[in-house]
């Protein structure tokens, strides 16, 4: 026979309130954490496989294998993306510094629009890949555009920039990481 206790301890009834307050504390903290700072499960993991046509020559394809041995920055962008326009000057600067190869991934975009965009704003990319279906973007866990991934010679993702790159990111994050990768390779 099971019997519901008639005089349960009063403390027991405080547990839900207590749990809720803990959760509310986390939610409060969550509000002040950078919402752009999205965890990427892929960091320090091999980049997903891909094989995509290039923007200027659809016959030619670039795959993960063909990038092996190079340190490169995969920049996910699209002509319909406003934040990418702001970021583009930063990319042009990085390209001018010649510190790393930048490969563009034109995400869910029309080829005509993408080409017009690069003609207008300059082309910082060594290659521009076309991901019209967004399949590769999904494999990379792209939440929004722009995002950039720093990938080393082994094809491992070393860092993810969520949202546009800013000038301070070059000195603050990108260059130290490139040096670290260089040292690791030695």
């Amino acid at each position, binding site marked *: 026979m099971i019997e519901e206790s008639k005089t349960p301890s009063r403390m027991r009834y405080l547990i839900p309130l207590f749990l809720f307050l803990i959760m509310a504390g986390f939610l409060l903290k969550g509000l002040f954490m950078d*919402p752009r700072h999205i965890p*990427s499960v892929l960091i320090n993991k091999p980049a997903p496989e891909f094989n995509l046509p290039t923007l200027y020559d659809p016959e030619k394809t670039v795959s993960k294998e063909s990038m092996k041995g190079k340190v490169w920055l995969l920049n996910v962008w699209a002509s319909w993306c406003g934040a990418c326009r702001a970021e583009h000057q930063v990319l042009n600067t990085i390209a001018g510094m010649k510190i790393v190869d930048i490969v563009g991934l034109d995400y869910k975009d029309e080829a005509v629009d993408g080409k017009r965009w690069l003609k207008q704003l300059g082309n910082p990319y060594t290659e521009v890949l076309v991901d019209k279906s967004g*399949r590769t973007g999904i494999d990379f866990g792209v939440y929004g555009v722009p995002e950039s991934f720093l990938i080393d010679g082994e094809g491992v993702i070393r860092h993810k920039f969520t949202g546009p790159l800013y000038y301070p990111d070059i000195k603050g994050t990108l260059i130290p990481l490139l040096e670290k990768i260089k040292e690791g390779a030695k």
Partner: protein
Amino acid sequence: MIPEIGHFALVLSMCLAIAQAIFPLIGTMNNTPSWAALARPLAWGQALFLTIALGALTYAFLVNDFSVRYVASNSNTLLPTVYKISAVWGAHEGSLLLWAFFLGIWSAAIAVLSKGLTQEVVSRVLAVMGMVNAGFVSFMLFTSNPFERLFQIPAEGRDLNPLLQDIGLALHPPTLYLGYVGFSVAFGFAIAALIGGRLDASWARWSRPWTTAAWVWLTLGITIGSWWAYYELGWGGWWFWDPVENASFMPWIAGTALMHSLAVTEKRGAFRSWTLMLAILAFSLCLLGTFLVRSGVLTSVHAFAADPDRGIFILIFLLITIGGSLALYAWRAPSIFSGGRFDLISRESFLLGNNLLLTVFTFLVLFGTLAPLIYDALEWGKISVGFPWFNKMFLMVTPFLAVLIGFGPLMRWKRTDPKKLVKKLRIAMIVSVVIGLIAFLPAISTGSLLVPLGMFLVAWIITSHITAIIDRLKHKQGISHIFADLAGKGRSYYGMVVAHMGVAMFILGATMVSHHGVEKDLRMSPGESAEISAYRFKFEGVAHTPGPNYTANQGEFTIYLDGEVEAVLKPQKRTYFAQGRPMTEAAIDWGLTRDLYVSLGEDLGGGDWSVRLYYKPFVRWIWLGGLAMAIGGIICISDRRYRSKKEKKPQQAYTEAANTLVTEKS
């Protein structure tokens, strides 16, 4: 002018909501019947002004009034009229207005349909709902006003997100919100009971149909959402464990537990404080969902634009409502007498098992949803809780639930003789085990243990319920008694059976589509064919077709089965004028035993396209199951015993006086 009227109506409804939160409650505390009696008229007024506000916003959409920022951001002159209406709730501000509007409607419904309740209870329930709506309407007015004007009026609107230009969007949020908001009624009843310290069978009987109604809406909302994601997003999936999906699923699980717990409270007077806890939990999870969706703390495909101000506002609101109600619970619940006594093998104990499993599952989903946030906040590193984890948890809990479901209808209250129970269920057990064993055949199981398990559970739920119905009807003499049972008090029993069949249908669909579905990504040239399961998909080519506010590339596929044409599918790739983003419109040939699904990828040049082809066996049963659960709930609500208007209990003198004041006789 019209938007200002809407804005003004919104302000008025906030004032009325605040009044509704304060005066009726104080009236019941210090015996002021005239104050207590204000609850109903205030609820009416609030519903009226919220209707005017919603009407004004709808009007602004219909006449393309782009001077209203919300309309300019979410509509366009080319948008078809039906989507202009659904665009009203297509983004943050408007969807909040819909929320508040529904809360007003539910409050008014309580005011009308509560003639048998004491004024005291009605006043308190409506006061609690007034507090909730005061929070929502002020949130809207202070941080997210849908009637805000633009001073540079754009010539053209930015258009509704193309993903949302669909019948699914027209239906999904309203049904879901009706469910969310509906749980505020159960919440109001729970708070009223905690304030009054009285929680008897009539309390449970009053709460039950309202809780079930909210649950039915939520079930429909989730089902429609899942169906919409399946055909609209072009991935062919039906559930993604996205944080926002979880936000709607958690109250559903807690609400399911609440419905079952309420049954025990009504019939046996047991589980009282537990029932109250679940009522608070279910609604709290609805509010938490709102926070998660609108504050930007989690990333999700559904999330509205993030804004920390909004987050702070909702968080304070959560602290007041959830924190306040849990504090009230901690203070008052220990004094609520709960005197259930029952055997280990009894309906009570099995419903307790159901409750525990559902609650554990609710917390697992909650944990999985918040884990990335918790880890990040504690600086333990970044984690991402994905699809596989949730699936594993789901598979750990549901089989036990499904086994319990089979026993439920044959269980008696207080005590069931285990020997008799086993004897009754013998045939059902044997049949389901045999079916489970047959499913081990490699052709059926595809090498997974989950297929035999799923088939066993489906068979078990069906056969045990058939056994239960036969057992019930055996005691009824003659056809006329059987019909009387169906028409009258037996309704809630048959409703339960239908809802449980829905669970079986869902398991069948989910098992089949997960293990027998075929998916192929291909590059196809015109005239080329591909074999998927027993079907041959022939790609005929792609042609341009215009639409009202988009242009599309339309593919054509002819599908053959044994050389006969089975279906012709025309998936589209659309580009909407206003936003220029390409959209995939999948084409589906649906059937009870299989869906054939084609979605168009990208143009690879020279007439070649990348395409995605699916064979989805029994996928419809997932949503049919949801529909059956909802129908079961509706049958339960129609049970005659909920419609007995008069509660024949002596009322306290002051509530009598209050009743005469509001002249309910009409």
